[in-house]
């Protein structure tokens, strides 16, 4: 576990040492504030739900940008070799990288805390939905990062990793939004596809509901894609 944490810390440091991180932080902060002010004003409902629902869409492009270099950079520069010969398992490498990226993602959500302070100053928000919404946002981010980690482990090219991640995320969002509306699919298939839609799974969190089925979806999805990433890394040994 300490090796995983060490890798995570190293990854987090390298993310924060890059100037791009602060550009991303700044832009994300600005976007968050813009979305927030779209729904904020005298008489408006004192909640973060619309802001969180807007951020979910933003994360489709933001998170792949964070995850694209996690392993691709190492594969391209050859630093993956020492990493793979070091006394760490592939699982520890993957999970460590993912955790580091999660730490960076969590720091991106700092502007939301500032907005919460504004809301508290001008209203009396219900913190239940705020808390569950933040948990949901982290879970969505965690899933997207897991997908990104897998994509990053698949290729040396960061852009390709970025595109693969976006592609898979779009399958789980846009496709799973429109397909259940198709007339040619049976009700069972429609239900299954509706279930796979990430936005649908996030909806309960944004309302203030904690549903164990949503947790199962996200956690199992994260584990599945990290598993794929591990297998992808392992395959380098015997390819």
């Amino acid at each position, binding site marked *: 576990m300490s090796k995983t944490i060490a890798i995570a810390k190293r990854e987090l440091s390298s993310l924060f040492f890059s100037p791009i991180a602060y550009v991303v932080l700044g832009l994300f902060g600005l976007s968050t504030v813009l979305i927030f002010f779209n729904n904020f004003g005298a008489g408006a409902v004192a909640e973060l739900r619309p802001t969180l629902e807007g951020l979910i869409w933003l994360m489709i492009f933001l998170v792949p940008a964070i995850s694209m270099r996690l392993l691709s950079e190492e594969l391209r520069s050859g630093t993956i070799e020492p990493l793979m010969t070091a006394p760490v398992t592939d699982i520890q490498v993957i999970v460590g990288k993912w955790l580091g990226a999660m730490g960076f993602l969590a720091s991106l959500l700092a502007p939301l805390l500032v907005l919460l302070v504004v809301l508290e100053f001008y209203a009396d928000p219900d913190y239940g939905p705020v808390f569950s919404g933040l948990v949901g946002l982290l879970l969505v981010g965690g899933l997207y990062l897991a997908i990104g980690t897998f994509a990053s482990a698949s290729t040396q090219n960061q852009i390709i990793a970025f595109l693969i991640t976006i592609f898979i995320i779009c399958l789980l969002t846009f496709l799973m939004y429109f397909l259940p509306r198709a007339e040619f699919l049976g009700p069972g298939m429609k239900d299954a596809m509706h279930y796979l839609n990430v936005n649908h799974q996030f909806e309960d969190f944004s309302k*203030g509901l904690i549903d164990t089925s949503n947790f199962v979806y996200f956690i199992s999805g994260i584990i599945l894609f990290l598993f794929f990433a591990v297998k992808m890394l392992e395959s380098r040994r015997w390819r």
Partner: protein
Amino acid sequence: MASITGSSDTQNTRRVKFGLNVAVAIVAAISITVLLNWIGYRQYLRFDLTATRKYSLSDQTRKVLQQLEGDYRIVTMLPPGDARMDPRLASIIQQAHDVTDEYARRTDSITVQHLNPGAEISRIETLYESLGKQFKENLRPLEEAVTEGRSVTNVVRDKAIQLVEPLQKLLEHNSLAEGDLKDFILSVARFFARFGPELEVQDEQIQRALDGPLPNYGAAKSTLADLLGGLDSGVFEKAIDYFKNASKDPQTPDSIKEQLLELVARFTPLQRQIRATKIKLDSTESVDDYDTLLRQLSNPQKVVIVGPGQVQVVALDELFRQPDQAMVQPGQIPELRFQGEEKITGALVSMSMENPPLIVFVHAGPRSAIGFGGAYQQVARRLESINFKVEQWNPMGRQGPMGRPMPAGPEPEPEPGQKAVWIVLPQPPPNPQNPMAAIGAQQVPEAIQRRLDNGDGVMFLLGYNPMSFMGGGEAISKMISPFGITAQMDRAVLQEVRGQGRQMLATARFEISQWPNQTPMTKALGGLRGMFELPSPLEVAKSDDSDVWPLVKIRKSRLWAENRLQGNPRPEYDEAKAADSFLIAAAAQKNKTRIVVTTASHNLGTGARAWASDQMTNYGPFGPGTGEVLGSLWPANAELFVNCVLWLTGHEELIAASARSQDIRRVKDITPQAMVGLRWILMPGLPIAAFAAGIGVWLTRRKT
């Protein structure tokens, strides 16, 4: 030394082995993930973290959903919220979406679909088509009658065109002199000449009514019936009569007579055909349920609940209650009270009822209780909206044409197994001009006693009546006393208040907002305001075989029950008749029979308004008749009436808890300057803070 080829084979074998291993592992991982999700979907826990538990369905709803049989579909057709919408309405719509999603979560019997009425037109039409299919068989006679009607009008049009020429020839005939006959023939000729284009316009109107997934056969039928009726009585009948009379006129030349009779011979079969078709149209019954559905669906914003063989529609404005007007502070924007869950659950329950109860208003007097012009229309409509069958019965007969008294209609009879509730409205005093009334006055208590003995529920709406020993008052007292209730109808509850000019006055108007909570009927009133005028006190006696619960209690200072109001315009406070509180409405149950006794209903021209009549339930901020649209000033009156009927029918599950407490937390007043300031601070502020943090980290790294 191993050969190179051998080494390569070993490598390939290893690759295949590893590859298979990975493939199997991936399949296993995916299978486990699918299985876990399937289990998680079926077995789950749900925690509502909102302050008011607004996504948690009430126990009542959950019970209803557990017992629901068959497949139901809830389709919301509500517009998505946008900046232009009233934010309160946007909240209501969001809650409607969220609550209906919860329904689908709780039971497999319900599927939920959200449609945008402005954007998803084709999907809405598909839904309407599926709704229309339920009525296909019932609509067939009407469809056939309309089709036949249209075909006959086309035949008439074609024949009318052919008739123009002989009419024209007749007009040009030398023997036809100027005069009324010629003018008439000219008008007929002109009518037939323009009939074709006019009929096309009418036909387009009919076609428009029939276009779409839910054809409006009712509208098409009435347009056709009007058209054919006009042709029959307004054209052909007149023309035939006129020509016949003209042909008998000795002053009409023989050649003209001949032609007129020829025209009559051609007109007559057409008229017969038109008449027969009109009769068929008139005799073809409309499908009331279908027409009701069309009317309800004409509202673009609604929730449609489709059940086995039934459809119910809840309009957007039924999803919320208007705020209590008097509780609104000046300048305050009051929240709308969401009651969508109550309405939707109510609709589900009423749709799943196998034998909806029969509610009969037993009324006397010339004014009807329900229907057009009825005194209790609003509450009757509320009961009809939950699928109850509502009828009225006037055992005293009614006024017929020319003021002659007519005998009463037959007493409504519930079907076998159907629960019935009888609403006994106050009876008028005996009227010597209407002898039937005296017979009817005896019939009411007899009929109601029979119904009570049968186990039906009865609601007595009693009114102050100083001569209550007459006109059936004693008989009604005998019916309610076994339940432990005595109504002192010769007394009126009054309160001494200080009037303008500081003089003391007596008032008989009582506004109530605190309700006893021993019964579901009043628990559900949760702070709603009610108004009761000229009530009379009830006394309750404890009994071993009956239970009595208070429904409305007046608790005010300086109250007394006066029994000498007649000829006493300024009654004075009487300590001997005073009490801290008076009970004016109560519910009772003996064995399985239930009754509700209320006072403050009048039929004596006292000027006071009966508490459940439209005069009270539909009294809004701008006076009578404005309550339905703008919110009743006394919403508790209608709610209490409906809740009592529900209790009497044994359908307590339809008595909803009060509309959810609205804890919508809104942003307080924020000045435009403050908004601008916030934007200026946060929009550049956060990015600048991020960049500053980056620069800080970079500088720190440089130093180290």
